[in-house]
């Protein structure tokens, strides 16, 4: 009854008042238009107010709410920013280059093939509760971070450490109970694998031979028992899961015979190649040479956490009342989904050089909201990619807009397992039918990309060139593949035989992704006469479709670097299942392997470039662009550089009150 009255009223009212309503709407939109013109059409130097805060504090809009304060848990950028304030590792990211700079370690020695590192810790490093930080704390932190129980999502970054992967995957060694000897991996290795053995896998040699004359202070205590075991050939590793292990053993007669009568020993944290040689010396042994590993050690995964607190409080150790931290700042308070406030830690070893009293990390996931807050002077800097695309025209000319290359690539992944995309000629055609120059000009903030590593990020890396835009050749290639492109009378093209049914270009829902996809679609339509339907998907649905190869055609992806080396991109195609394209080639893996066993840095880069070229020729993806960072920071915020990963060592950031020393453009990344 009630509902009936209510509905009839609504209907009648709507009829009577629709004219007034339209008038009102027109008035409102006029007013809105006038206001926005007035607000946006200003010719100020900066975007909004530039009054420094009264105290030395930084109000930083940090995007999403941090998942957890445990540095081993999250992989996101908002969390990384907070971890970098609260926790320190042996090394820290350089504010400009992101290379490793001393932190808890004062200095380090690298062996001749970058497969072993000796870190010398400073003796005055302190936890926020005043206790000293020593080598054992680091060893504990790494063992904990990659333990299967913590189930870290970034644990794979530590797989370079000897036995770390086996420990994280809960694998087992095989031991002969009679002799106490372990079975060795090399006795069962498939033919043709290791190109050469890393120094860390060979028997111990004198210091001079392993570390060379460059070592600032040759590591003492070389001959511990643990170190001997690290320098022994790698042990055979089998899955802990009995069913999987049984399958594996039964498939290999030699292995089955060798395993018979042996016992399986679980790989534990004590087995991994991280050793406290003494209270202030840490030795890290890798299973392969990795020249970039020192830089990787600045990652939150390797930052030290306080053992006693974790053992006492378990999962709630990160609560403000319990947490003990190691970084330049300590937790002051945390109001979830609102703000997390850190303050300078007086116990920090370099406290004299920490310039900010406080950093306030604000949670705000809506970019226009963050921009407005910045504009009225309620925030001093924003997280990367916070300038919405439609705002670029207004914000980009301002002097507080940060524009620099980012260590990331945008590309279309191709599912190469299904026709017609299993034909290399078709993939090539779709690549060279896209005018990437025009695309980047239209998008304004990116650089066109023809390779699979970002342009202008890895200094000295001879990045190979992929094929460039050539619509004529693209049509010819399609013709060769059996899909002739014909020219219509009006000058447009058609490719009637091409089977578009089921093909699509899928992307995760986001305005900017949609724009990219539409551009690609238009290019193919214009140059090949083929219309590929677009598939707009919720982001997790998109990821599942890519990971499980549940798409046909193309998937738009953006890949950001985990560390500053080309392999952070090239390794995507290292295993058959991880890339999401279905493409895998042993030759490519061998090329990467060869590069990683090459000692000379430049030679290694050349070999990596060779591998990249091989990948580009196989074309399991279409590179699109190198994105740019785009955010705003007030000119008085100094020491914050738009580096390729947007990670800031906070102790170098400060508030400059003398306006003559402000940043009047994007600060340079080269000194």
């Amino acid at each position, binding site marked *: 009854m*009630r509902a009936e009255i*209510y509905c009839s*009223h609504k209907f009648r*009212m709507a009829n009577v*008042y629709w004219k*007034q*309503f339209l*008038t*009102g*709407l027109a008035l*409102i939109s006029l007013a*809105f238009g006038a*206001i*926005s013109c007035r*607000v946006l059409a200003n010719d100020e130097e900066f975007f909004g107010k530039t009054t420094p805060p009264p105290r030395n504090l930084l109000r930083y809009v940090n995007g999403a*709410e941090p*998942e*957890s304060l*445990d540095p081993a*848990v999250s*992989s*996101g950028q908002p969390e990384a920013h907070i971890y970098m304030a609260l926790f320190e590792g042996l090394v820290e990211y350089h504010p400009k280059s992101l290379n490793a700079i001393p932190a808890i370690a004062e200095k380090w020695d690298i062996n001749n093939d970058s497969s072993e590192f000796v870190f010398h810790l400073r003796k005055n490093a302190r936890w926020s509760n005043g206790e000293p930080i020593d080598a054992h704390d680091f060893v504990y932190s790494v063992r904990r971070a990659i333990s*299967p*129980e913590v*189930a*870290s*999502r970034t*644990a*794979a970054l530590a797989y370079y450490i000897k036995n770390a*992967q086996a420990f*994280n995957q809960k694998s087992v060694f095989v031991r002969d109970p009679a002799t106490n000897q372990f079975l060795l991996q090399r006795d069962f290795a498939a033919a043709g694998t290791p190109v050469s053995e890393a120094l860390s896998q060979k028997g111990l040699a004198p210091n001079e031979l392993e570390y060379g004359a460059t070592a600032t202070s040759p590591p003492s205590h070389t001959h511990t028992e643990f170190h001997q075991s690290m320098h022994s050939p790698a042990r055979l590793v089998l899955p802990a899961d009995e069913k999987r292990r049984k399958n594996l053993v039964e498939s290999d007669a030699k292995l089955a015979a060798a395993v018979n009568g042996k016992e399986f020993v679980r790989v534990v944290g004590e087995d991994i190649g991280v050793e406290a040689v003494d209270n202030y010396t840490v030795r890290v042994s890798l299973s392969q040479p990795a020249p970039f590993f020192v830089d990787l050690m600045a990652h939150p995964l390797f930052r030290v956490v306080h053992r006693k607190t974790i053992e006492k409080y378990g*999962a709630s150790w*990160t*609560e403000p009342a319990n947490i003990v931290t190691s970084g330049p700042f300590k937790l002051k308070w945390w*109001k*979830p*989904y*609102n*703000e997390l406030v850190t303050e300078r830690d007086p116990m920090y070893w370099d406290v004299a050089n920490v310039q900010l009293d406080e950093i306030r990390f*604000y*949670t*705000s*996931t*809506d970019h226009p*909201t*963050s921009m*407005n*807050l910045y504009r*009225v002077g*309620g925030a001093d800097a924003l997280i990367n990619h916070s300038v919405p695309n439609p705002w670029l025209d207004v914000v980009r000319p301002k002097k507080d807009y940060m524009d620099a290359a980012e260590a990331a690539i945008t590309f279309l992944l191709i599912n190469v397992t299904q026709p017609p995309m299993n034909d290399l000629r078709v993939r090539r055609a779709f690549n060279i039918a896209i005018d990437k120059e025009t695309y980047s000009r239209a998008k304004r903030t990116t650089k066109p990309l023809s390779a699979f590593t970002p342009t202008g990020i890895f200094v000295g890396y001879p990045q190979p060139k992929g094929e460039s835009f050539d619509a004529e050749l693209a049509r010819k290639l399609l013709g060769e593949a059996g899909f002739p492109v014909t020219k219509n009378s009006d000058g447009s093209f058609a490719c009637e035989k091409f089977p578009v049914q089921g093909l699509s270009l899928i992307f995760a829902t986001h305005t900017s992704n949609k724009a990219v996809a539409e551009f690609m679609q238009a290019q193919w339509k214009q140059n090949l006469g083929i219309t590929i339907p677009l598939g707009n998907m*919720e982001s*997790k*649905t998109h*990821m599942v479709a*890519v*990971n499980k190869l549940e798409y046909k055609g193309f998937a738009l992806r*953006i890949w*950001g670097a985990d560390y500053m080396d080309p392999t952070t991109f090239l390794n995507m195609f290292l295993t058959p*299942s991880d890339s*999401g394209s279905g493409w895998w080639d042993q030759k490519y893996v061998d090329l990467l392997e060869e590069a990683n066993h090459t000692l000379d840095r430049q030679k290694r880069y050349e070999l990596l470039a060779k591998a990249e070229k091989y990948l580009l020729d196989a074309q399991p993806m279409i590179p699109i662009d190198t994105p740019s960072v785009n955010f705003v920071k007030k000119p008085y915020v100094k020491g914050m550089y738009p580096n390729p990963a947007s990670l800031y060592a906070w102790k170098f950031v400060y508030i400059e009150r003398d306006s003559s020393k402000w940043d009047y453009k994007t600060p340079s990344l080269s000194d």
Partner: protein
Amino acid sequence: MSVQLLMLRFIIRRLLITIPTILVVITITWALVRLAPGNFYTGDKKLPAAIEQNIREKYGLDKPWREQYLRMMADVLRFDFGTSLSYPGQSVNGIISRTLPVSATVGILAYLLALAVGIVTGSIAALKQNSKWDYASMTLAMVGISIPNFVLGPILVLVFSLMLYWLPPSRWEGFPSRNIILPVITLSAIYMAYIARLTRAGMLEVLGADYIRTARAKGLSETQVVVRHALRGGLLPVVSYTGPALAFLLTGTVVVERIFALPGLGTYFLHAASNRDEPLLIGIVAFVAIVLLLMNLLVDIAYAYLDPRIRY
């Protein structure tokens, strides 16, 4: 049976129906999260299989689904919604009790504002039917209903924060603070407009009723007639609207909380759904469902008091 007893029986019956309803709602939510592609740990990059396995074992996702469902239900029946998956270490109950005050503060203030403005404007419009007051207020109400809050919010921010610098554009600074003004106005606009329309319609119907004529004939003053007799009957539609409206306002509104970066329940609701945070989502859905059902019950009770003709 006495009226009171009938009423009590009605209330108990309604409360008993609530329990199975909630359980069905929870089951559907659980199934929907399970059916949605991806997991809480699905990120930009594919996780190595072993790492995914570690996570699944840690959170018991490797167990058969029946076992997981029964365990979840057992927890829910003990009012323990468990720990959030996407915010490890934070209990769902803790998140709800922390965010509810934020959403409820903004929601209740918005509804009070909407009631005050809406009833007054609606009454004036009804009493002065077809006058310029009537047309003006009803046009404004129509505009209020038509402008979605994701448009109104940014307009208010543009005018009051970016142009005039009077009010902060976002963020929660507790209550009372100046930060609360814009979200409250944004949130209340549509309710204000609706209440004005409902009041006007209700009043118009009542003003022509016999008992109003009786009241006038008794020689009561016009104010007494309006306030004591007309409003009481004329507000019935507003009351029935209050239940669901208040339930939604109390439990947070996704859009307004996002525009103004408020740490409310709606923010977490959206986060839980898009991150497949099953315990958090189930906890919030169950909570919202309970509030909604209780509000509707309260409305039905209030009805009996306002309108002597209604019997249960």
